[in-house]
C-alpha cells in the first residue's frame, strides 16, 4: 500500500464519508414506522480513526454498514443520506456499489477469522480478494499476496499461503482477514468488533497492527466496538451511541477521561479496571426499544440528572466550543456524576484455619480418547493431558479467580469439579473429608446440592420452554421437595434476592433481557443453598453496564451466604473485581497463584506479566506492553515449562527440559518458574 494516495492531499477539505441526518427504520407489527437510527450526522476524513461505541442494540453496526450503502433485511432509509465522496450510497446502482464496496470501502466483519473458507488455502483466498478488488494484472497476484501477508505481519508468508485456516491461531486468522480487506487498497476500512472474541494478548497485537496500518497508509478507519479499552488504543475521535442516536461525540481523550454525557459517564463507571479499589457501578434499567422514546431524551429513564424537560423535549445535538457535540439538555451538570463506583471491593486475605471447602489434588484431565488399537491393547492414550497437575485449596467463603486465555483449561477444571467431566487422575476433596466421586451419577444428592454451576450464556443455560418459576422449581423440588405454596413463596424470595420482581415468575426466558436472564441463572444456582458456586465466564455474554450489575449481585450474595466461588474469566479486570485469590493458568498448567492484591501488583510469573501487560484499559494514557507473540499452541509441550515457547525470559535448556518447581512466598503467593520469585521481570511496568 502506498502512502501517496491522491485523497490524502486534500484530506481536511472534503470528508470521505459523510452521513447527513440519516434515519433508518423498519415497519413494526402494527404498521408503525420504528426508527433504529435517528438523525445521525457523521463525517469521516482521510487518515482519521473514528470509534463508534455503544452497547448491543445501540445501532452502531447498522450505522457502519449504512456507510457502505448496506441495510439489513427489513430496514429502510427514512431520511437523510450516506455519502461516499459526494455520492449518496443509497441511490447508487448495483454496479456502482460493487465498485465502491471492497475496493474503496472495505469491511472487516466480526469473527472474520471464522468467515474464512475452511477448505481453501490462505493464498487462494487472499488472491480471490485481489481478483475482485484490485486492478493488478493476474500474474502479479501471487507476489502481492505474499506482500499483503507480510504487511499484516504474519510470520513466514511463503509457507503460510499453503496453509488452511484451521492451522492458524485466532489472531492469525484475523490478520488474514485484514490482509484480504487491504487487497483493494481501500480508502476507508470499517471494522465491526475487530478484536471481540480474541485473547487479550492477541487483541493488543491486532490493534497495534491496525493503528500502524492507518498511520502508514492514510486510510480512514471506523471502529465499531462495545469495548472502550480497544477504542482507547486506536481512535482519534469517538462517537457514543445510545438507542440509535449519537449522544456524544468528541476526541478520544475527552470522551474517555471526562465525558460530558450522563450515559457515557455511566458506561465508563460500569467498566471494571485493574487499578480500581471499587466495584464497577451498574447502570440500572435498560435502553428503550425502537419507537419507545417518542419526544423524550432516550436516556431520560435511566439518567440521574433527568428533569421534567428531559421527558418532554428531545435534546438536540449541540456542538460546543471544546469540539465536542452532546445530546443533553443539562450537559454542564454531567461532570458531577462519578466516573467510578463507590462500593469498595471486598477482596480479603482469609486466614487458612484449615477448613477448606474444596481441595484439588493433582488433577489431570485429558480429552484424548483411546483409539481402537489402544482399546484392544488396553493402553492409555499417549498424548500430554489437556490439564495437568492442578493443586489448590479453596477456603470457606473464599473466591478464587481462575484466569487464562482460551484453551487454558479454565472451564475444563470447573466441569471436573462439577462432576461433568471425569479427571484422568487426582482427587477432589470436599471439606477435608473424602474425595468426591468423579462423576455426577455417583455423587449423593447432598454432595450435588452443595456444588452449583452458573454458565456463561444464559440463552444456552436456561431452557427456552420453561417459565422462570419452572426453572427455579427444578432445584427446589429436587433437593428440598418443596410443593405448592411453599415452593411459590421460596421462588418469590429467590427472585427478590436477585432483585427481580415476583411477576417475573410467569415469563419465559425470551421475555427477559440478557442481564435478567443471567440473574435467573444465578437464582437457580442459589436455590440449592450451595457451599460452592462455580462461575464460568458468567459476565462475558453481557453488556458492560449489565455485567457490573451481575458482579455486584454476586458480591452481595457472597456476603450474605458465605458461599465460596470459583470464578473463571478471561477478563482480568472482572476477576480482579471479585476475587480474593487468583490462579493463572496457561495450557492447562498453573503458573501463578496467590492473593489477588499481590498477584495484580507484583505479577511474578512471566506469563502473568504478559497477560496483565496486554490488558486494554479505557484510558488513553496507558499503553499495553506487547511482549510475547501470539502464536498458535495446539498442545502443551511434552517436557519442561508450559510457557517455554512464548516466554520472553526463557533460560533456554533448563526451561525446555525441566518442569519448573513451585516457589512460595510468605503471603501465600506462589509461582511455578525457574526464575526466582518477585525477581522475574525487567519488563515491569
Amino acid at each position, binding site marked *: 500500500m502506498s502512502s501517496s494516495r491522491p485523497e490524502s492531499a486534500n484530506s481536511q477539505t472534503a470528508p470521505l464519508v459523510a452521513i447527513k441526518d440519516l434515519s433508518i427504520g423498519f415497519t413494526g407489527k402494527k404498521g408503525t414506522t420504528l426508527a433504529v437510527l435517528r438523525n445521525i450526522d457523521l463525517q469521516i476524513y482521510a487518515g482519521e480513526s473514528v470509534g463508534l461505541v455503544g452497547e448491543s442494540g445501540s445501532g452502531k453496526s447498522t450505522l457502519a454498514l449504512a456507510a457502505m450503502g448496506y441495510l439489513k433485511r427489513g430496514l429502510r432509509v427514512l431520511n437523510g443520506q450516506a455519502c461516499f465522496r459526494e455520492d449518496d450510497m443509497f441511490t447508487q446502482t448495483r454496479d456502482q456499489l460493487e465498485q465502491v464496496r471492497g475496493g474503496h470501502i472495505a469491511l472487516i466483519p466480526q469473527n472474520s477469522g471464522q468467515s474464512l473458507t475452511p477448505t481453501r488455502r490462505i493464498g487462494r483466498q487472499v488472491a480471490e480478494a485481489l481478483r475482485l478488488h484490485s486492478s493488478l494484472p493476474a500474474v502479479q497476484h501471487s507476489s502481492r499476496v505474499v506482500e499483503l501477508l507480510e504487511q499484516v505481519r504474519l510470520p513466514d508468508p511463503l509457507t503460510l499461503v499453503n496453509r488452511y485456516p484451521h492451522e492458524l491461531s485466532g489472531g492469525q486468522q484475523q490478520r488474514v482477514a485484514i490482509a484480504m480487506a487491504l487487497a483493494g487498497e481501500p480508502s476507508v476500512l470499517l471494522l465491526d468488533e475487530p478484536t471481540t472474541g480474541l485473547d487479550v494478548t492477541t487483541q493488543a497485537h491486532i490493534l497495534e497492527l491496525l493503528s500502524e496500518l492507518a498511520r502508514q497508509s492514510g486510510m480512514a478507519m471506523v471502529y465499531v466496538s462495545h469495548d472502550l479499552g480497544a477504542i482507547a488504543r486506536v481512535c482519534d475521535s469517538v462517537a457514543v451511541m445510545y438507542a440509535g442516536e449519537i449522544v456524544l461525540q468528541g476526541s478520544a481523550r475527552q470522551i474517555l477521561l471526562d465525558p460530558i454525557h450522563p450515559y457515557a459517564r455511566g458506561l465508563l463507571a460500569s467498566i471494571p479496571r485493574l487499578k480500581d479499589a471499587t466495584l464497577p457501578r451498574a447502570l440500572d434499567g435498560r435502553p428503550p426499544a425502537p419507537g419507545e422514546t417518542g419526544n423524550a431524551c432516550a436516556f431520560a429513564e435511566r439518567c440521574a440528572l433527568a428533569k421534567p424537560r428531559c421527558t418532554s423535549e428531545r435534546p438536540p445535538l449541540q456542538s460546543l466550543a471544546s469540539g465536542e457535540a452532546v445530546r443533553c439538555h443539562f450537559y454542564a451538570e454531567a461532570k458531577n456524576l462519578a466516573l467510578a463506583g463507590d462500593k469498595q471491593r471486598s477482596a480479603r486475605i482469609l486466614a487458612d484455619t484449615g477448613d477448606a471447602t474444596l481441595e484439588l489434588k493433582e488433577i489431570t484431565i485429558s480429552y484424548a480418547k483411546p483409539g481402537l488399537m489402544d482399546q484392544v491393547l488396553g493402553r492409555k492414550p499417549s498424548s500430554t493431558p489437556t490439564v495437568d497437575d492442578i493443586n489448590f485449596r479453596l477456603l470457606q467463603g473464599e473466591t478464587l479467580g481462575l484466569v487464562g486465555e482460551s484453551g487454558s483449561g479454565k472451564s475444563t477444571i470447573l466441569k471436573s469439579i*462439577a*462432576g*461433568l467431566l471425569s479427571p484422568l487422575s487426582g482427587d477432589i476433596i470436599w471439606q477435608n473429608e473424602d474425595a468426591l466421586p468423579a462423576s*455426577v451419577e455417583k*455423587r449423593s*444428592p447432598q454432595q*450435588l*446440592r452443595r*456444588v*452449583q*454451576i452458573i*454458565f*456463561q*450464556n444464559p440463552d*444456552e*443455560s*436456561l*431452557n*427456552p*420452554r*420453561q*417459565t422462570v*418459576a*419452572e426453572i427455579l*422449581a*427444578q*432445584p427446589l*423440588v*429436587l*433437593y428440598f421437595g*418443596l*410443593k*405448592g*405454596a411453599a*415452593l*411459590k413463596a421460596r421462588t418469590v424470595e429467590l427472585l427478590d434476592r436477585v432483585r427481580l420482581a415476583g411477576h417475573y*415468575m*410467569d415469563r*419465559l426466558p425470551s421475555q427477559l433481557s440478557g442481564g435478567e436472564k443471567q440473574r435467573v441463572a444465578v437464582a*437457580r444456582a442459589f436455590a*440449592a443453598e450451595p457451599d460452592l458456586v462455580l462461575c464460568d465466564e458468567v459476565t462475558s455474554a453481557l453488556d458492560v453496564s449489565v455485567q457490573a450489575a451481575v458482579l455486584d449481585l454476586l458480591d452481595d450474595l457472597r456476603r450474605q451466604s458465605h458461599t465460596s466461588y470459583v470464578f473463571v474469566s478471561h477478563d482480568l479486570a472482572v476477576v480482579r473485581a471479585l476475587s480474593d485469590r487468583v490462579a493463572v493458568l496457561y495450557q492447562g498448567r498453573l503458573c501463578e497463584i496467590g492473593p489477588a492484591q499481590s498477584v495484580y501488583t507484583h505479577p511474578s510469573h512471566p506469563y502473568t506479566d504478559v497477560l496483565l501487560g496486554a490488558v486494554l484499559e479505557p484510558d488513553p494514557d496507558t499503553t499495553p506492553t506487547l511482549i510475547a507473540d501470539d502464536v498458535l499452541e495446539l498442545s502443551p509441550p511434552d517436557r519442561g515449562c508450559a510457557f517455554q515457547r512464548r516466554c520472553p525470559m526463557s533460560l533456554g535448556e533448563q526451561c525446555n527440559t525441566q518442569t519448573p518447581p513451585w516457589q512460595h512466598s510468605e503471603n501465600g503467593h506462589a509461582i511455578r518458574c525457574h526464575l526466582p520469585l518477585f525477581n522475574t521481570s525487567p519488563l515491569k511496568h
Partner: protein
Amino acid sequence: MTGAAVSMARHSTFTSVIRVAGDIVSRPSGAIGLFLVVVHLLLAIISPYIAPFDYRDLDPLKMLQQPGPVHWLGNDHLGRDVFSRTLLGGREALLVTGIATPVAVLWGGFTGIFLGLAGGRLDEILMRIVDAFLSLPWILKMLVLIVTFGTGVGVLIPTLAFFYGIPVIRIARAATHDVVARDFVEAARARGHGKLSIIWHELFPNVRDALLVEGAMRWSWMLLAFSSLSFLGFGVSPPTPDWGLMIADARGFMSFAPWGVLGPVIALSSLIIGINLTADALAKALGIDRAQKAPI
C-alpha cells in the same frame, strides 16, 4: 411439579394452542387445510346419521347406474349407493390411523429422545437396526406381519403404529441432539436429575414441536398406507365401506362407469391434501422449517 407450576404451565399451553391455531388459520393454505380436515372428521362422526342409503343395500336393477338426482354419485357394480358409501368410507381409516399415529409418534419419539440423550453403544446398535428396517420396502414388512397375524383392526393398529414409529425415532433423535448439547441440559445433569426427569423437563418441551409436525405428516402417509392395504385386500373386509376397497372394486369398470372410483378418490385425496396443508402451516406457525426438521 407443583400445583402452582402446573397451573401456570397449563395456562401457557392453552394460550399457545390458541395462538398456533390462529396462526394456522391466518394463512390461506392453512385455513383450507384445516377446513378439509375438520370436515372429514365431522363426516366420520355424523355420516351414519346423514347417509341417504344403507351402505349394504344391494339393488341389481341399479348396477353401475349413472349419477342422478336420487343417487348423486351413481351406483356400484352391486347397485349400492356410491355417495353413501363414500361418506362412510373414511371411518375405518380415520379410526385406525387416528389411534396408530399418536401411538407411533409417542413410542418413536420417546425412543428417539432417549437414544439421543443416552448415546453410546446402545444408540449405535439400535440406530443400525433402524437403518436396516428403513431400507426394506414398507409393504413387504407390513405384509409379513399381516400374513402372520391376520387382518383386522386389532392387527392393523399395532402394525401401523410400530412401522410408522421407526422413522420418528430418527427425527426425535436428531432434534434431541440439537438440544442435548446446550448448557441447560448440562446444568440439569450437574444438579443430579435422572434421565427421565431430563427427558421430561428439559428435552421433551424442546422436541415437542418437531414431533407434532412429524406426527401430522405420518398421519397422511399412514392413511395412504391403510388405503393401499385395503386396496390390496389386506385391510377392511367387505361389505364395510372403505375408500381403498371401493377403488379396488370399481377399478374394473373404470372405462365405462368412472363414478365408482371418483367418489372415494376425491374423498381420500382431499383428506390427504388437507392434512399436508395443515402440517405445513403448523410447521410455519411453530417456527420449524420442514426442510430442516429441527426445532428452533
